[in-house]
């Protein structure tokens, strides 16, 4: 349909319409006269689908791991699992202070202007809150991991070392607090928009993203060799919550308004992701297959993030969903 506009092209279209009754590509079917039968205005989207590309679901994934790793690190420090704490803080620093900002900046339409994000603080803009949460998290996680490493290796003398140990505790606590927000705000980010399938599930999304982050952090630590029962417990908890969310999602249906979650390719992504990090991870963990459960959970968490962005694209392009959602 993108051939140059000309009288000749119009003749071709008329000819095709005469023979087949339908013109392929954009446009209405011609049989039965000119009254359009597509929903809304010729089926055009009412709201705009997200312009975000692959960087954003990947950022949701790594941001979740980073934030919740800091929580695990904090608990590990409290209960003297120094090895786990060190690995967890490295994960937090690398995923949260390196990978996440890079992915966020890459997704901008004008990456060189990324610092403009720090001009204002707007509590009513979740994007603004997210940038400040990520900044605060990085500010805690990086000094936290440095202080922890210096303290572990006993580089300095007793007084300075005590100070370092205290600093590590403060920074890791800060990283844990901002980390929980970093892992959950992304659900608010897409939940408080005009996209019907997103805003209809605005309470489910932060729970899902936060819990998937916690489970992913524990799973990654287990795959990195930390096979302790505390991480196994967290794995059980996260997979159980995700199973409950899968049930919630299949009960709390809104028909046409959120059909992007239950139909199309986007629906399959959500379903596959939720099964992998919900019931399948739970069953594998129950039978003691910890590495398999961890892999299943990580893959599921990633697929469901990709799925939720795909859902936004499908739902935002669907005028009927927007009209139907206004009843809720």
């Amino acid at each position, binding site marked *: 349909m993108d051939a*140059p506009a000309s009288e000749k092209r119009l003749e071709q279209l008329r000819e095709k319409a005469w023979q087949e009754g339908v013109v392929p590509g954009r*446009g209405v079917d011609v049989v039965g006269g000119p009254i359009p039968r597509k929903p809304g205005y010729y089926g055009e989207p009412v709201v705009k689908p997200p312009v*975000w590309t692959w960087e954003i679901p990947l950022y949701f994934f790594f941001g979740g791991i980073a934030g919740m790793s800091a929580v695990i690190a904090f608990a590990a420090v409290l209960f003297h699992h120094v090895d786990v704490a060190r690995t967890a803080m490295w994960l937090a620093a690398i995923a949260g202070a390196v990978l996440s900002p890079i992915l966020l900046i890459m997704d901008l339409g004008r990456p060189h202007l990324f610092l403009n994000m720090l001009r204002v603080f707007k509590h009513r803009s979740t994007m603004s809150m997210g940038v400040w949460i990520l900044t605060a998290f990085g500010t805690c996680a990086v000094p936290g991991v440095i202080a922890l490493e210096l303290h572990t290796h006993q580089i300095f003398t007793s007084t300075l070392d005590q100070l370092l140990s205290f600093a590590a505790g403060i920074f890791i606590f800060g990283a*844990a607090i901002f980390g929980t927000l970093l892992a959950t705000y992304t659900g608010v980010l897409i*939940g408080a*928009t*005009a996209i019907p399938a997103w805003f209809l599930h605005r309470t489910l999304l932060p729970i899902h993203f936060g819990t998937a982050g916690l489970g992913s952090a524990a799973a990654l630590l287990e795959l990195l060799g930390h096979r302790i029962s505390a991480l196994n*417990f967290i794995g059980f908890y996260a997979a159980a919550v995700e199973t409950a969310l899968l049930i919630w999602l299949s009960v709390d249906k809104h028909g046409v308004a959120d059909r992007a979650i239950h139909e199309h390719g986007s629906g399959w992504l959500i379903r596959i992701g939720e099964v992998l990090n919900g019931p399948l991870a739970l069953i594998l963990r129950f039978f003691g297959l910890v590495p398999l459960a961890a892999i299943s959970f990580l893959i599921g968490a990633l697929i469901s993030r990709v799925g939720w962005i795909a859902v936004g694209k499908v739902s935002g392009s669907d005028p009927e969903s927007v009209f139907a959602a206004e009843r809720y």
Partner: protein
Amino acid sequence: MIGEGTHSTNQRRHNYVQENVEVGFFTDPTVCIGCKACEVACKEWNEVPDDGFTWSGNSYDNTGHLGASTWRHVMFLEQDRQKGNQVVGSYSLGNGDDPFRWVFLSDVCKHCEEAGCLEACPTGSIVRTEVGSVLVQDDVCNGCGYCVVSCPFGVIDRRPEPLPNAGGAFKCTFCYDRQKSGLVPACAKVCPTESIVFGRLDDLRARATQRVQELRQHGYDDAQLYDPQETSVRGIHAFFLILGEPEAYGLPPKPQVPTIYLRSAWTAAIATAIASIIATLVAFAFSS
């Protein structure tokens, strides 16, 4: 009004920006002739790049929808209803007495009272002007794309490569530059039938109410105003008279500003944050 010549609010100079007067557009499809002069004037004045040359097959509308490079969009609706007291004859659809009407409506950014894009913008690029319109400052915008999903009307969009100024979010500026100099927005200035009227918002609302009554007397039973003042959007600066249902124009009947969803979403987020900390502490406490 037509007939007022240079005294019409669409033609005369004004000081609305200096005097902080709330202004608006009132768009009336019953006098629109679908000439698309508004689209052209908008493109020329604002130097908006082309938005694709495609056949849509949708009546005479090959523009499609509002977007980063489409700030005015004339809709062409073909409906099987009667237009006012229109006489239905054998020329309608070829088979006798089918009612038929062709409706044109020039769509534009609504400049909401509670604007989703403005609330969402993390750089402070989107601001409210003295005249109540919503303006994107292009040199500040870094193209994060959050306004795109926050507009309940699907107006604002990010401009793709390789167009000029790509990467930023764009929409109607209400010709803020022209208004500062006392000029009328380009689309209203050129509208040959004054289907687009520019003026003080309170004047326009009064005028629109009167126009609806007038049309009803002339048999336009389904004429109504589209100005969602009862929803969280709390009214729009560019409002419309429409024939029939808003859905047919791709206008949401009950648009909501997405910030109303913040409370429940953040509550869930904080609850998850607390639950995650507790679960982790419990996990380590019981295994130590």
